[in-house]
């Protein structure tokens, strides 16, 4: 009896420790973004929304935020379209060395962002492409394409193959099969891939840092703010970044997974 209560207590405290480990840093970050004082360190002096006001009044932060959104949405869209086309081709047609091609498409997942950024930086220098938000977007497509491909490819089954066959039988050309049958049918996984890509691109720092010059994304802007020391304002903007990520995941959960569950 006692041992069972003890083990219950032990498992609950393990759970608490686990979630504490994961969420304590974020909780601290968010808490001190409301700090009424100049330093985001204990003791907590009382709540104020002043720092949030400063964040939204800061034009550099706001333009970085807009840049981040553009890069995230743009690169996620491109990665999804390319990932879908690659998955469709590899799942539906007999292609030479298709296993090797699948491996090559997924391979960038195993390479660190730093290496990818260095490789792209060298390539852009060699091609004479000047760094901009476009180059950041290309970098994010490179890291998100394997993810999009893997998610969409995994959801392409033989049942859908027969449905595509029916569409072709009823007179649809290949592009019509893709746009009017396959893509809508696979929309849950395409949306999942899209929102995950947006989230990864939104948070990404190394590639965005190395491949941008004058216009920067929000993580890069935050990093340059951090160089002048800790400040509740950095906590506030960090909280905004976190909030957007959470919102994206919630949208994913609500729209995509609920839709899938219904079927």
């Amino acid at each position: 009896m006692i041992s069972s209560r003890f083990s219950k207590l032990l498992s609950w405290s393990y759970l608490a420790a686990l979630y504490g480990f994961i969420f304590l840093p974020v909780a601290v970050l968010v808490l001190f973004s409301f700090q009424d004082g100049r330093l985001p360190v204990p003791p907590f002096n009382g709540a104020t929304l002043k720092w949030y006001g400063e964040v939204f009044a800061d034009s550099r932060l706001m333009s970085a935020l807009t840049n981040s959104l553009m890069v995230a949405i743009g690169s996620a869209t491109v990665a999804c379209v390319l990932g879908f086309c690659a998955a469709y081709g590899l799942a539906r047609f007999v292609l030479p060395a298709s296993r090797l091609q699948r491996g090559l498409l997924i391979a960038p997942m195993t390479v660190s962002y730093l290496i990818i950024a260095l490789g792209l930086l060298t390539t852009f220098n060699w091609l004479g492409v000047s760094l901009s938000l476009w180059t950041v977007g290309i970098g994010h497509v490179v890291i998100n394409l394997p993810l999009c491909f893997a998610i969409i490819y995994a959801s392409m089954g033989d049942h859908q193959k027969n449905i595509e066959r029916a569409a072709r039988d009823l007179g649809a050309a290949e592009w019509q099969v893709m746009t009017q049958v396959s893509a809508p049918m696979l929309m849950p996984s395409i949306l999942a891939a899209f929102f995950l890509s947006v989230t990864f691109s939104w948070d990404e720092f190394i590639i965005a840092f190395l491949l941008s010059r004058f216009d920067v994304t929000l993580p890069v802007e935050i990093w340059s703010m951090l160089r002048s020391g800790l400040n509740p304002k950095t906590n506030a903007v960090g909280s905004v970044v976190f909030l957007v990520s959470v919102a994206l995941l919630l949208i994913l959960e609500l729209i995509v997974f609920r839709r899938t569950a219904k079927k």
Partner: protein
Amino acid sequence: MTAPVSIRNATKIFGDFTALDDISLEIAAGEYIVLLGPSGCGKTTLLSLLGGFLSPSSGTIEINGKDMGDVAPAKRPTTTMFQDYALFPHMSLRDNVAFGLKMRKVGKAERHAKAEELLDMVGLKTSANKKPHELSGGQRQRVALARALAVEPDVLLLDEPLGALDLKLRRQMQDELKAIQKRVGTTFVHVTHDQEEAMAIADRIVVMNSGRIEDVGSPENIYMQPKTIFTASFMGEVNFIPGTFESATDSTISVKTPLGTVELPEFECRGFTPGASVTLAIRPEHFRASTGTGPRITLGKAKVEDGSFFGTHHRAHLSPLDYPNMTVTAHMPQSAIIEPGAWVELTLDPTSVVVLHGHPPRPTPESAAL
């Protein structure tokens, strides 16, 4: 819209497996053809050749007199109804049915009107806005039929369309399919392995086995006058009695069997020579009471081994006195009292006996009940 189909010497080889071996078949416009056979007999391959999903290794396929050699599925005057229905899950029933017309660039109002007309025909007019996942299996099947007919194909190809339905619904859908086919007049080519379904629905049945056509004919012909041992056993329960052809006179032939020499009317003779191996095929329901009208022959006495009641008849296993190792299956009247150990007379109408070339492939003569 309807058209004749002509298959000439079609052969399909996959690697070292011959799926179809020199098939020739003429299908008339507006005919309801059922391709019947066990799995792996080539019936689905033949359907895929007609639909254009496969191309023949050799031979030609003509629809309405036009060679289909290089015509893609989308360009053929055929549509296919798939076994798993293959409905578009993200579209309403109306959009599903109208899809083929949309691909043919028919205007929205016109194609929706046509779709609703077809949904009405299959009894789903009020569900036009529903999605496929809201329907039962039988309803999905109807939508698949409406979708395939919406583009007014000359030939509708049905790939085991009733395979996923339960028995009762399957019998009901058979009647509906047949009625709709008569109404639209389209040539239907229907693949199944269910011989009851084939008999209920077909104008002509094509029995297939190991890539070849075994038999072609009306359901009555195929069932009552099968041309081969395979057809006889595939079409339903049958007793095979091996024998030797002895002689023929003007009006009768005689066959020597383990159950004695059997005299049969001459019209059953199909070019047999004396001494040839033959098999007598007798359906269980052809055993008759000896007191009935019409000609009768007997295969001697048999002992009742066991029996079970099937509603319309009793099905009994009998072992003949002259050859106790053989088991004969007979259907006896509802009112009969089946007592194991009792002796009955194996009486039958000689015109119902079919004489086939060769012996059944099994080593010991016994009932070829499926």
